[in-house]
């Protein structure tokens, strides 16, 4: 991947007056407005105020752990007017997969493009299993004998490894942005993601809801989705893109198809899907024309006939025979298999399905990777993991478990300040103006801001990935694929048993 320049990071602070942070700062009346705190805080927590300073960026505050620093404001305040304590909102924020710290850490990356300095755990959640129990075994810092610099490390992956006559498509980061339809998210959300994908040299998938005209400027970076409802799928949308994705199932709700409840079917959504406004829209499961692998091949051949240059990606969930599904997709001519594990899905996916049907991606991926290796075709197909990738560490871990790259959805929404309230399905009322089709709520977000937030977050992710690769002595993310030896599961391996450090 030569000649690609990664986008510039620009500060994109919270669009709300009070960004949510881990700590809450109160300044008592004892304050004399001397301005010392404003002056000494290197993180810009305080702003000058008329009567006393305002802690307008308290989400940047290090909290009590700052006490070891000589710029610890609570200590240095001559009047001891500053009180720092845990933000009570923080305790109720998020869930076990996305704990408050991970949310806040992600917001921080989206705001600044940098790794959070506040001591937030931005690497893992608190689910008690899977990624959250897995760590990298990293050699001690500078402990390896072939030092590499950041610039030498490639995070690029090739999406067409089939050796067929279709074009090569290389993306400079091992990730692209997964399908979220117009209708399930606002047009601003959709465009922010698409524009970020352009800046990062990668792709963004339309989801199943048609191809809004606004996206057409970004054709080269759009993946158009052919899903079971075939909503908005037309020859010209298939013809204009470089990758076409078949969505067979979503890990969050395998066997259930898609649904967009009536409330979200506004005239614009209905128009794009050519359906009736106000009526719920169902995508069936499965494709009514595909009940076997040879039907699937025919389906893939069809898309390949319409667009003779496009790569074909097949998105499937992770049933117990996911390895068969992957190998079948390969033989049917797919370039990319996207395995969608069970953690994904917005709040609109039914709870009963969300965590109970498909296999977690950490189980599915090694199974598929090893099976394809044994088949001798692992290097002919690109495996993309999705469904519960929350952080740069999740991404690096799943690559070490056999994926070539990842596909993200929820992480982008968090970058746009989603608070994971799980009410995506309840009408148009996403309080944050992300998963909405309501015009006023859509206006809560600006396109430039949304774009930059996503760029910032993934830039931070890339930096973390580069750092992991560097410490492992690898020059390319491709070297990390299937390296189970660099991972440790904390239930089975203790820090004392390994050389190096668990991260």
């Amino acid at each position: 991947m030569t000649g690609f320049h990664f986008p510039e990071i620009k500060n994109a602070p919270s669009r709300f007056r009070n960004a949510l942070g881990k700590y809450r700062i109160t300044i008592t009346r004892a304050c004399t407005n001397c301005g010392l705190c404003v002056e000494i805080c290197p993180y810009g927590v305080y702003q000058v105020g008329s009567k006393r300073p305002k802690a307008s960026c308290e989400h940047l505050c290090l909290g009590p752990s700052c006490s070891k620093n000589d710029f610890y404001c609570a200590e240095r305040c001559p009047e001891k007017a500053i009180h720092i304590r845990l933000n009570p909102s923080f305790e109720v924020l998020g869930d076990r997969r996305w704990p408050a710290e991970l949310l806040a850490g992600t917001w921080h990356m989206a705001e600044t493009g940098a790794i959070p300095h506040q001591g937030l755990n931005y690497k893992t959640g608190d689910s008690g299993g899977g990624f959250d129990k897995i760590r990298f075994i990293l050699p001690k810092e500078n402990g390896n004998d072939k030092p590499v610099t950041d610039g030498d490390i490639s995070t690029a992956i090739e999406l067409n490894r089939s050796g067929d006559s279709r074009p090569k498509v290389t993306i400079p980061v091992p990730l692209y942005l997964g399908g979220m339809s117009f209708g399930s998210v606002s047009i601003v959300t959709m465009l922010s993601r698409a524009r970020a994908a352009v800046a990062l040299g990668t792709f963004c998938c339309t989801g199943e809801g048609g191809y809004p005209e606004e996206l057409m400027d970004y054709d080269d970076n759009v993946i158009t989705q052919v899903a079971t409802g075939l909503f908005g799928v037309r020859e010209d949308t298939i013809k204009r893109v470089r990758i076409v994705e078949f969505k067979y199932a979503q890990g969050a709700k395998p066997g259930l198809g898609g649904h967009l409840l009536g409330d979200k079917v506004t005239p614009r959504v209905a128009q794009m899907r050519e359906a009736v406004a106000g009526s719920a829209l169902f995508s069936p499961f499965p494709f009514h024309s595909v009940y076997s692998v040879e039907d699937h091949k025919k389906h893939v051949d069809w898309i390949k006939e319409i667009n003779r240059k496009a790569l074909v990606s097949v998105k499937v969930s992770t049933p117990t025979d996911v390895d068969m599904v992957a190998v079948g997709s390969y033989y049917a001519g797919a370039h990319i298999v996207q395995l969608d594990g069970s953690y994904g899905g917005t709040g609109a996916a039914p709870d009963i399905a969300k965590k109970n049907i498909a296999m977690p991606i950490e189980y599915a991926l090694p199974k598929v990777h090893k099976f394809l290796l044994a088949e001798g075709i692992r290097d002919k197909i690109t495996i993309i993991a999705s469904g519960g990738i929350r952080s740069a560490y999740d991404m690096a871990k799943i690559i070490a478990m056999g994926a070539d790259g990842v596909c993200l959805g929820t992480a982008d929404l968090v970058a746009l300040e989603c608070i994971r309230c799980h009410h995506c399905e309840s009408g148009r009322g996403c309080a944050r103006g992300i998963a909405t089709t309501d015009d006023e709520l859509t206006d809560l977000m600006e396109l430039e801001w949304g774009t930059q937030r996503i760029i910032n977050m993934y830039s931070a992710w890339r930096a973390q990935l580069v750092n992991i690769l560097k410490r492992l002595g690898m020059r390319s993310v491709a070297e990390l694929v299937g390296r189970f030896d660099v991972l440790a599961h904390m239930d089975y391996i203790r820090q004392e048993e390994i050389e190096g450090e668990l991260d």
Partner: protein
Amino acid sequence: MKNRTYAQSIIDSRRHLGDEAGAISRPRVDAEEGGCGVTGFVCNIPVSGRHIFEPSVQMHNRGNGKGGGLAAVGLTPAKLGVDQRTLDEDFLLQVALLDETVLAEMEERFIRPHFRVAHEAFIDTVDDYRDIPGLEMKPPAVKRYFVRVRPDALARFRKERNLLMLPEDKAEEEFIYQNTYRLNLALYSSLGEKRAFVLSHGRDMMILKIVGYAEQVAQYYKLDNFDAHIWIAHQRYPTKGRVWHPGGAHPFIGLDEALVHNGDFANYYSVTEYLKQRNIYPLFLTDTEVSVQIFDLLNRVYGYPLEYIIEALAPTAEMDFDHLPEEKQRIYRRIQAAHIHGSPDGPWFFIIARTDVKNRQYQLIGITDTAMLRPQVFAIQKGEVEIGLICSEKQAIDATLESLAKEDPRFGTIADHYWNARGGSYTDGGAFIFTVRESANGRKNLICSDKFDRQIDVPRDQRPCDLTKKLPLAKLESAFQAGLRKELRKGDVEGLFSSLAKGLPKWDYSYTGSVLNRLRDLSKDDALKGNVIRLLTLFLDRYYPTGKKRRRSILQMATETLHSLFNTVPLLNDNAAGRYGRINFERRQHLRPPFPVEEVLIADAGNFPPEGDDSYAHLVTEAYRMGWKKFICFGLRGQRFLGCGLGPETEGIRIDAYDSTGDYLASGIDGLEIYVHGNAQDQLGQIMKRGKLVVYGDVGQTFMYGAKGGEVYVLGNAAGRPLINAVGRPRVIINGTALDFLAESFMAGDPYNGGGFVIVNGLTFDDRGRVIPQDTPYPGSNLFSLASGGAIFIRDPYRKIVPEQLNGGQILPFDERDWELILPYLKENERLFGISINRHLLTVDGKRRKPGDVYRTIGAVKLSVLASSSLSMNEEWVTGKSIEGMPDILFHHSTNYNKI
């Protein structure tokens, strides 16, 4: 009672088989099977194995070359080195030797001690398997034995297994079954290294299978000179790669039957448990094996008649069950209660070939699952010779007929009837049985019947054309000849066709042939060519009386005339030759933009692969890109995606497709017009956006799935799941009916305000070409289910549609507004198909009716109603309450007609 005792004694006698199987620890592998292509035909004369070759090649893309197999039933003794009696009475045991050194041990243990061998031989093969293009793995050596169980061995077996009460012939059959099981267990499934397995052991039948494609079986084992009454073949698509032995390939055996299967079971585990309870243990771990095990259990062990076996496999459900006679309901209910756990759930389609020893007949059976999730087409042709065919794709049927006709002109290239089975239905039971049986005069006859033993036949009083001799030329009156030319010049092709069609019943074949020849000669004049093509095409498109002649012969003659006409058009070269230019596979590199005089590109599909880089569809797209606007596509053999890929705004483009078009035709078209002159295959018009599709025949499964618009006219029936998830404004007329699930989740807006709708006329044609109503305009249990927009207008003068068929829709009065909406489409329908609004659609029992008395409207229910129980809504209808604007008269009608 006797049967029950027999059944139990056989089941008990197998108990040790389970112990033996259990003693060997095998990893439990779940069935791995993809979809496949299946094909089979049965003929009243024995025909060569080479004729299964063509349909197999045609369905290459349904397999991946990792398993192919075929079975032959009703063999010719001379080719096997035995006499007729041995062939009839002995079991034909074929053993595949994956490791040839196992032979001595195998014979020592499983042949010599038990059998009197009347004849044994290795099956002849080509010298080097690498001489067969594409064959990568050496097929197994196969040894064939004609055996009877030695009396002492049988006596011992009956004693040891406590089968003394079983008649001798049944005990011998069971001996064969158990011996095969033990051979397979010992030399196949218990071993890491597979060494040998039994391919087949039934009477008058044999199976061969390899790692490769089915047609390579025929090549490798030299079946060119091997004749049989029935051939079935299977292209396998296993998703697990690195298959190195053919044990998992189809067909699988029961006793005297071979089964091939397309699909897979969701309940493989439950079915194996059901079998285990009856001491049956699968060894090959595919769902196909268990399918035939169930068949054998029900057939040989329980002694069920075929109808009940079919019922056990594909139970009748929903409204179809209610339509059964009470006596059948009583029996079926019991069958379902006893065997529902052995009923395969999921998409499947079986083709079974068997020797029915008891009744001295051969049978070819096709059975579809209740939801009809796999493609299936049946066909029959009768004349001097008689043939029945079952395939995954219609084009494979046509390929078989063509292959047969080339060698033996008593076969025609077109079948008398093509049809689909309606799974688990009261109409045909989802199964058809072709039986070859010797009649009193010593001639073998073919009989086709459905599950309920209702026969499907061809018009007896109409004779097909005898093409074994060259047709003598008839002299055409000079006035007639001059008239032809004059009318063609004038351009009233429709009028000319009517006058010819009027004369046709009186013509004999040679006169008809002479007229067609004359037309072909006239077409040499470029100015007349277009009209001649249109005229000849009308003979394919329309139904008309044929007198004593068989329709399929007329179709074959018209098709041949058209082909010969097309083939005289000069191939494209550097100069313009006229208004027509031709292109074919060999000359495809010479495709170039049209010169100004050139209007129509005649594209010969012969030799084009069905898909891929060199596809026929691509040739058409390229030609379009170069500026061609009118296409005549002929010689199609299932090439897929015709019309796909041209992109948006293709108004003014017209494609006329002849012969066996393929899947996905017209999918995604956005403006262009496609005319299919004949039956079409599966998945037509998916996501169709705009434009026009006209099919002069039936359409296959999932027709117009996810369509957004377009005007579509279908002369015949649609198979399962048409128009599912269609949105926007598709406007469709189906003149026949649909098997089931018509317009499920239809979301096509407000039909009166630019939205979409479907008109179903429920008509068909009789043998004399007359329009007649079908038994019911819509036989399925699911109509317009969960639809949120659009409408269905159904011609139902006898009020046969009942609310129970709707799952969310509602029956509304058909009013003036509806008539205004559909009239323009009915007019175009009349123009295209000759189905007259006044004489056919609005005339019921000879009386002209008002549109509102003939048609009914089915509309979507508002979401709030949809969200509540659909049952209450149906009750509302039945009690006749509270549907606004519903005139009482409708209810009266409904009652009246029900009484009729």
